[in-house]
């Protein structure tokens, strides 16, 4: 029956998609980012420094994106602003340190394959732990305050404090170490430009996560439901889908991604304390705001932009790194008040 109706409508229209007001690909934000990067070049002077800074910024941007992606999706889908999201970053990084000891033979072995496998296992376990925490978190702190922004902000901030303190109870207040295995350390030389291996890996993983998320959202049935839920939740519910369950799944996955981001960030810094989460919270929030709440593409673009501005400014005037992020945010919001890639529904 349904196939018959689609084929008949396809027969009447030569190209059925052409008649639909589809979303135009908006390249302006991308051009802005490229222009921003190029504009910084003369200020920095040496081109090899510029390349090093830019690659580092891309790596950090990818990690920021991974940490922030869950937050933006959760907001888009359920109108829930979880300020405690940064605690997942800390939990991911701390969980990773706990797996270092049991997997140490692989980490310290000569073989590159074993090294990489060890890092992958660490990241996966950290993701699982964080996702489990995310599930409990949703029950305790998100569900009771559903639909009340004021309560949500207050409770999730309180929840972040509680989680951070619990991390300290479990792991202690000392500085944690998360050393990279030998084969992932060091730099590759391109001419006179040295690029750290781990940065390239981070960029690769970030690009993979981005591609995976976009594919999932655009091409899969779950993605279809998520997008539909973001646009109009009541309608999806009325059609008989369990948006609540979908939301929990997205929340847990988002927490897991934040855990992955935290692990990567931990490996990047190699040593950290519990403030690893709170330190990136502000940047994550800025990324989510200027990306456009609920938009994965926007989140990606914003993460890169913020990382670029942080890196360039901390090279040029270290005191003003965070201030430059605020300035970028202000300029973007004045230009596009709802973010780089706003969603149609909001």
């Amino acid at each position, binding site marked *: 029956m349904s196939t018959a109706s689609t084929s008949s409508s396809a027969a009447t229209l030569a190209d059925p998609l052409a008649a639909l007001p589809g979303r135009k690909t908006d390249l302006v934000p991308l051009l802005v980012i490229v222009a921003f990067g190029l504009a910084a070049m003369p200020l920095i002077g040496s081109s090899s420094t510029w390349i090093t800074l830019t690659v580092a910024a891309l790596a950090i941007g990818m990690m920021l994106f991974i940490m922030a992606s869950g937050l933006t999706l959760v907001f888009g889908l359920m109108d829930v602003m979880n*300020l405690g999201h940064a605690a997942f970053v800390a939990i991911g990084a701390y969980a990773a340190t706990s797996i270092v000891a049991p997997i140490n033979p692989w980490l310290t072995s000569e073989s590159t394959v074993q090294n990489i496998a060890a890092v992958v296992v660490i990241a996966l376990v950290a993701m699982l732990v964080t996702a489990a925490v995310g599930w409990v978190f949703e029950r305790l702190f998100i569900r009771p305050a559903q639909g009340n922004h*004021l309560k949500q902000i207050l409770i999730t901030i309180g929840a972040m404090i509680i989680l951070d303190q619990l991390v300290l109870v479990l792991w202690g207040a000392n500085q944690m170490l998360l050393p990279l295995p030998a084969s992932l350390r060091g730099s590759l030389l391109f001419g006179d430009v040295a690029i750290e291996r781990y940065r390239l890996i981070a960029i690769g993983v970030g690009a993979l996560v981005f591609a995976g998320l976009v594919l999932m959202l655009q091409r899969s049935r779950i993605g279809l439901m998520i997008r539909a839920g973001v646009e109009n939740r009541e309608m999806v519910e009325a059609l008989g889908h369990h948006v609540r369950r979908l939301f929990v799944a997205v929340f847990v996955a988002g927490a897991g991604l934040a855990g992955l981001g935290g692990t990567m960030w931990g490996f990047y810094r190699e040593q950290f304390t519990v403030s690893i989460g709170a330190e990136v919270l502000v940047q994550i929030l800025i990324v989510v705001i200027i990306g456009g709440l609920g938009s994965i593409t926007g989140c990606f673009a914003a993460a890169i932009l913020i990382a670029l501005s942080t890196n360039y400014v901390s090279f040029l005037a270290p005191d003003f790194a965070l*201030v430059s992020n*605020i300035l970028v945010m202000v300029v973007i*919001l004045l230009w596009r008040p709802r973010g780089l890639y706003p969603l149609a529904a909001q």
Partner: protein
Amino acid sequence: MKTKKPSLFTQILSGDFPRSRLLTLLLLGVLVYLAGAPFLFSGARSLNVAATICVFLVLAASYDLLLGYCGIVSFAHAMFYGIGAYGVAIALYKLGPSWSALAIGAGAAIALSAVLALLIALVSLRVKAIFYSMTTLAVASAFSALVLRLTSITGGDDGRNFRLPEVLTPGFRLFEAELWGTAINGKVLSYYLVFACSLLLFLLMLRVVNSRFGRVLEAIRENEFRAEAIGYRTLLYRLTANCLSAVLACCAGVLMAVWLRYVGPQTTVSFTVMLNILLMCVIGGLGTMYGAVLGVVIFVIAENYIQVGLQSLSHSLASVARLAKLFHPDRWLLWFGTIFVLSVYFFPSGIVGKLRELRIRFGL
């Protein structure tokens, strides 16, 4: 019919009575304690506690103006408080101890807070209230990073010590004789300066929230769309409330600097201060003004005793290592956070709300 002229008392409180006998008693107790603090207790520490309560009273009440009456969560309140404190500190440090330096510092700080609050609100409040919370969080953390980094101006991590005009220094005596066993020195004078300013600012805020302006704010909090439909420019009201609250927080900062003769990043712009203010307002009861008073008093008392209590609990649990860790005094933030979340869940109307409920039920 002749309209009755409101009594003096009604005028002072702007017609907003505590509406609960227990609450009235508690508030009177606080007032008597604060008014007589230099004579009731001896020692610098207890006077310091009283002055802290005075200052935080203004700070929490001005936050309540925003959180309780407008329903918007700002994380930049501690920043405005810090601007006030640093404004006075920097002016007195650079220009020397004079009243004009104090006035210049306070004036500049107030102007800066108003402009900054307006800018933040213009950028973020236009779109969505939730943007505002996130933006204020970002701006506040950038500001505190800046305070720490710009060492030549702010003194960085060490903060700034500075001298006050002579009248307010402990060495100054108003008259030689002692009054009820207390020497009336500059410290007592500056306490009363802080106390009087705090009381005035609090009554001013009471006036604001009970004016037509305050009613419109509450209307916007309850239903922004409807308020706009009636014809109020909601953005304008929110902007004004935002600036007003920022300026009042800045005043609290000025008072704190005058009292302590020192400013440092930990006691002004840090996120912990912001959380303290939040907890004070939530515990006391949002949107009541009197709630801020009770919240501050309870918080300051608890702050002094919670760590002691945890210490003894931790010692008695020493045999169970995990539990002892949970109650370690360094983990007081854990309990603080738990209390905070629980009070948002179970006492959304705070202590004042509960007390008023008691009056309705039992006539207390």
